[in-house]
C-alpha cells in the first residue's frame, strides 16, 4: 500500500494536514522529474502542447493527459451519481487566456446501483490557450496547471498535481513544430456538433429526444447513450429506450432529481457506439435542445443490448436454447391442430397403403421435412425483410392481410373438395387424392410440407408465443434458427414414422375405412374455410364475404369441369384446362382487386365480440391506458384478433363469463380490448413491451400509478382471471 493511500485510510487524521502532505509529496515528485509529468499510484499525468514553440498572439492547444491503471477511472464534466469532475487551475503570464476544458466523449461505469460517467485507461483533456501579444522571440511562455481529480475503483482518492511546461517564443516566420500527437488523438475523441435538427419533448417520464433522418438502420445493434452535461437533468442510470423509425430516431430519457422545465435547454452528448471488426467505434454529438411541451409518444425499446438485464423490463427473458426447445415443442403440437391433422393423416395413411421400400419411405419423409423447413425459412426471410424495412410485424402477421386470408380460405376449400372426392388433384399438389398412388411423388411430399406450414400458421400454439417473441427481437441468424426448430418440430412426427416402420404398426390396418376417414376429414377443412371467411368479414366487410363465397362457387365449378374431363380425350382435357386456368386467373385477380377495395373501407374498431354478457370493454388506445394509469386505476388489457383461435376460446370460456365481468366491475377494473385483426402499430408496440410478437396477451395493471403489470397465462380459465383480480 502506498504512503498516500495509507494516509487516506487513517480516518482520524485531519484532512488539511493530509492534503498538505500529499501536495508536498507531489511537488517533490514533480520537481524530481523537473518536467511536465507527475504521477500518483493510480494516475500518470502529463502536460502536452500542440506546438513545440509559440508565436506571440497564437492560440495553442494544451492537453492534460491522464494514464490510469486498470479498473480505476476519472470523471467527465458530469460525473454521474457520484464522483467529481477533473478540474484545472491555470497559472499563465499576464495577457494569456485559457478556455474551458474540451471533454472527450465519456464512458458509462456501473458500480452496483450507481452509474458514473468518466474515463478509464487514458484520456487527454484539451484546453485552448491564447499566447499574449507582448511576448518577444527568445522569451519563453510558461504554462502551469494545478490539476485536481478524483480517481476511483471501488474506493475513491482525490488527487492534485502541478504540471508545468515552458514553450520558447519564436519569430513569426519560424514554424512552431508539430507538438504532441496526443493532442491530435484527443481531438478525434471530442464530440462533434450535431448535424441534426434535434427536438426534445416533455413527457411524463422525462425528455424525449427526436432526431429526424436516418440516424441508425432499423434493427441496428449500435449502442446509443445520452450523457447529460448537468447533474440531475436526466437520470444517469435509467435505461434509455429507443425507437428507429424510417424517418426519425427517438430516445426516451428519464427525468432526474433536478428535472428541466419546458423552455429550458437540455445539454449533453449523444454517443453512438458501433461494433466494428477492430473494436468499438464511438462517435459523440454535442446537443443543446430546448425542451418543448410534450407530444404523446411511447417508445418500445428496440435496443437488444439494453433489453438484456433490463431493470424495468417486464418481457419474458428466454435463452436461445429454451427458445429453440419451445419452438420444437410448439412445432410438434402444431401437428394436432384441426387444420394440419387431416393433411398429415392422409400422408401417414399413404405409408400403410403402399408398402414401398424402406428407402423410398424415408426419402418421402425427408422430402416432406424439406418442404416444411423451406416454407419456414421463406417465412423467416419475409419477416426479417419486413422487420428491417421498419414494419411493425409479429407472428400471424400474414393473417392481417385480407388477401392472404381469402387465399388460405380458397386453399382450405379446395383441399376439402379434394378430400370429398369432387376433385382429384395431381401428384404435384398436396400429396392427397391420386398422389397416394404415385410412388415417385417426392415433390408431392415436399408440397405437403409446404401446405402443412401454410395451414399451421393460424393455429399459434401457445408454446410458440414466447419463442417467436424472442426470435423477433434477435438478429436474423437466431430468428432463422428458431423458425427452423419450429419447422423441424412440425415435420418430426411424420419423419419418425417414415424412418421407423415399427412405429407404423401402431397405425390401424388399411381398408375401406380409409376412404371414409378421408371424406370425414373434408369437414374440418370446410369449417376452417368458414372461419377464415368470418375473419375476412371482420377485416373487409360483407362485400368481401360475398366475393369470397362467389370465388368458392367458381372453384367448385372449375373443380367439376376439371374432374369430368380428366379421363376424356386430349382435346377435351386441353379445353378444360384452358378454361380452368382462365377461371383461376379471374378468381385471383377478382379477389385481389375486390378485397383491396373493400378492406380500406372498414374501420378496425369492428371487433369480434363474444356473446354472453353485454359489452363491458372499451377499445384499447395508448392514450386511454396512459390516462387510466395516471389516475392509478386498475386496468385489464386483452389483446386479441379475429383470426386467433386461442384468443376467441379464451374470450368465450373466461372473459365473457358473468362471474369475470362482475369481478371486473366490483374491483373497478377498466377492461380494454385491443384488436390486432388488422395492422395496428399501438398494439404491436404494447406486445413488444411485454416481449411478445403475437396475440393473445392478457395484462392486468393493479391499482396505483407505479404498480407493475402482471401478465396472465395465454390460456385462461375464469379461475385464473378471478384469482388474479382477487390478489389486487
Amino acid at each position, binding site marked *: 500500500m502506498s504512503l498516500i493511500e495509507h494516509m487516506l485510510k487513517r480516518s482520524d487524521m*485531519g484532512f488539511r494536514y493530509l492534503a498538505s502532505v500529499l501536495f508536498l509529496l507531489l511537488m517533490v515528485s514533480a520537481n524530481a522529474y523537473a518536467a511536465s509529468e507527475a504521477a500518483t499510484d493510480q494516475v500518470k499525468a502529463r502536460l502536452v502542447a500542440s506546438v513545440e514553440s509559440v508565436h506571440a498572439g497564437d492560440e495553442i492547444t494544451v492537453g492534460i493527459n491522464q494514464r490510469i491503471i486498470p479498473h480505476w477511472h476519472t470523471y467527465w464534466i458530469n460525473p454521474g451519481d457520484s*464522483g467529481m469532475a477533473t478540474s484545472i487551475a491555470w497559472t499563465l503570464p499576464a495577457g494569456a487566456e485559457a478556455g474551458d476544458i474540451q471533454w472527450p466523449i465519456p464512458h458509462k461505469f456501473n458500480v452496483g446501483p*450507481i452509474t458514473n460517467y468518466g474515463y478509464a485507461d487514458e484520456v487527454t483533456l484539451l484546453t485552448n490557450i491564447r499566447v499574449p501579444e507582448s511576448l518577444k522571440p527568445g522569451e519563453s511562455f510558461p504554462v502551469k496547471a494545478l490539476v*485536481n481529480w478524483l480517481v476511483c475503483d471501488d474506493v*475513491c482518492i482525490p488527487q492534485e498535481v502541478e504540471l508545468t511546461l515552458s514553450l520558447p517564443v519564436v519569430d513569426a516566420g519560424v514554424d512552431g513544430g508539430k507538438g504532441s500527437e496526443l493532442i491530435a488523438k484527443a481531438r478525434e475523441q471530442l464530440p462533434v456538433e450535431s448535424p441534426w435538427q434535434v427536438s426534445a419533448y416533455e413527457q411524463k417520464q422525462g425528455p424525449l429526444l427526436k432526431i429526424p433522418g436516418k440516424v441508425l438502420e432499423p434493427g441496428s445493434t449500435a449502442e446509443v447513450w445520452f450523457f447529460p452535461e448537468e447533474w440531475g437533468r436526466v437520470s444517469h442510470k435509467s435505461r434509455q429506450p429507443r425507437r428507429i423509425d424510417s424517418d426519425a430516431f427517438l430516445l426516451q430519457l428519464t427525468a432526474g432529481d433536478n428535472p428541466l422545465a419546458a423552455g429550458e435547454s437540455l445539454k449533453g452528448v449523444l454517443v453512438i457506439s458501433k461494433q466494428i471488426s477492430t473494436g468499438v467505434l464511438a462517435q459523440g454529438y454535442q446537443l443543446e435542445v430546448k425542451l418543448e411541451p410534450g407530444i404523446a409518444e411511447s417508445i418500445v425499446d428496440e435496443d437488444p443490448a439494453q433489453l438484456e438485464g433490463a431493470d424495468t423490463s417486464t418481457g419474458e427473458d428466454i435463452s436461445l436454447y429454451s427458445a429453440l426447445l419451445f419452438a420444437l415443442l410448439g412445432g410438434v403440437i402444431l401437428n394436432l391442430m384441426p387444420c394440419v391433422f387431416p393433411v398429415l393423416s392422409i400422408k401417414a395413411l399413404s405409408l400403410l397403403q403402399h408398402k414401398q421400400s424402406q428407402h423410398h419411405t424415408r426419402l418421402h419423409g425427408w422430402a416432406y421435412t424439406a418442404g416444411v423447413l423451406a416454407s419456414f425459412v421463406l417465412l423467416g426471410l419475409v419477416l426479417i425483410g419486413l422487420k428491417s424495412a421498419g414494419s411493425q410485424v409479429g407472428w400471424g402477421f400474414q393473417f392481417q392481410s385480407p388477401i392472404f386470408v381469402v387465399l388460405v380460405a380458397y386453399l382450405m376449400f379446395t383441399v376439402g373438395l379434394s378430400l370429398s372426392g369432387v376433385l382429384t388433384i395431381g401428384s404435384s399438389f398436396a400429396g392427397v387424392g391420386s398422389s397416394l398412388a404415385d410412388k415417385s411423388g417426392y415433390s408431392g411430399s415436399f408440397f405437403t410440407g409446404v401446405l402443412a406450414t401454410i395451414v399451421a400458421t393460424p393455429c399459434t400454439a401457445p408454446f410458440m408465443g414466447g419463442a417467436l417473441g424472442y426470435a423477433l427481437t434477435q438478429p436474423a441468424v437466431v430468428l432463422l434458427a428458431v423458425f427452423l426448430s419450429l419447422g423441424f418440430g412440425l415435420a418430426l412426427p411424420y419423419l419418425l414414422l417414415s424412418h421407423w416402420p415399427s412405429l407404423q404398426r401402431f397405425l390401424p390396418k388399411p381398408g375401406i375405412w380409409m376412404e371414409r376417414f378421408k371424406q370425414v376429414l373434408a369437414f374440418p377443412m370446410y369449417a376452417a374455410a368458414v372461419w377464415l371467411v368470418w375473419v375476412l368479414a371482420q377485416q373487409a366487410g360483407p362485400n368481401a364475404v360475398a366475393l369470397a363465397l362467389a370465388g368458392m362457387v367458381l372453384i367448385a365449378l372449375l373443380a367439376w369441369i376439371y374432374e369430368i374431363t380428366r379421363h376424356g380425350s386430349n382435346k377435351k382435357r386441353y379445353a378444360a384446362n384452358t378454361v380452368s386456368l382462365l377461371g383461376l386467373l379471374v378468381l385471383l385477380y377478382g379477389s385481389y382487386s375486390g378485397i383491396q377495395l373493400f378492406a380500406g373501407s372498414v374501420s378496425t374498431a369492428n371487433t369480434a365480440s363474444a356473446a354472453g354478457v353485454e359489452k363491458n370493454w372499451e377499445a384499447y388506445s395508448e392514450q386511454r391506458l396512459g390516462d387510466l394509469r395516471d389516475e392509478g386505476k386498475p386496468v385489464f388489457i386483452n389483446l386479441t384478433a379475429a383470426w386467433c383461435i386461442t384468443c376467441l376460446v379464451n374470450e368465450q370460456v373466461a372473459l365473457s363469463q358473468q362471474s369475470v365481468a362482475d369481478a371486473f366491475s366490483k374491483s373497478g377494473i377498466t377492461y380494454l380490448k385491443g384488436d390486432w385483426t388488422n395492422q395496428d402499430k399501438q398494439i404491436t408496440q404494447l406486445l413488444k413491451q411485454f416481449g411478445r410478437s403475437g396475440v393473445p396477451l392478457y395484462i392486468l395493471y393493479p391499482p396505483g400509478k407505479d404498480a*407493475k403489470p402482471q401478465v396472465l397465462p395465454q390460456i385462461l380459465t375464469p379461475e385464473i382471471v378471478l384469482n388474479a383480480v382477487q390478489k389486487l
Partner: protein
Amino acid sequence: MLLRRLLNVAICGASLAFLPMAAQAAADIGKAAPAFSVKTATGETLSLDSLKGKTVVLEWTNNECPYVVKHYGSGNIPNLQKEATAQGIVWLQVISSAPGTQGHVDAQTALKLNTDRGAAPSKVLLDYDGKVGKQYDAQTTPHLFIINPEGVLVYKGGIDSIATAKVEDLAKADNYVKLALGELASGKKVSHAVTKPYGCSIKYAS
C-alpha cells in the same frame, strides 16, 4: 382436453416465474419517506414509523471516504449533528458498505469511530445489505435526507454546495442541510429541496 390441461399447467408455471417483482416505493420529495426497520450499532431494531412526530436526518457515511474525512476531520458534520440533536432532531448515520468493502465497520468500531471523531449522531444504522440505501437511492457518502415530523421526505442531496474534498472550501460553501433544518424549525418550506449529492460512491453489495 388433457392436452389443454397440460398446457395450462405448463404455461401457468412459466408465467409465475416471470411475474415482475413487487414495486418498491421511491424516495421522492413531498412523498412519504420509504419505511424501514433496521438494526442499529447499539443492538436494537429501529423503524422509521417509531420516529413519527420528529424530524429525522439520514446521513450515509463511510469513514474511509475522503469526502467524509473532509466533513468529519473539519468538525463540520459532527457540529451539525450536535446542533440538530440538541433541538430534538433524530440524526441517523447509515452505513451501507457491504462486508469486505471500504467503510464496512462492525457495531463496536462504528461507535468508537464516532467517539474518536467527536461525532454525535442519535443512532448508527447498520444497513450492510444496502436495503435502506437502495430504497432511498442513496448514491454517495455523504448523502443526506431529511424527513419531517409527518414522515414526508423534504430534503435529499449533498451536505453543501461545493463538491470537493478540500477542507478550505467549507467556508465558502452553502450548507444545505443546516439551511433546510433551520427552515423546517421556523415552519418554512425547504428552499433547496433537491441538491447534488457528492462524494464517494456507496459500496453496495453487488
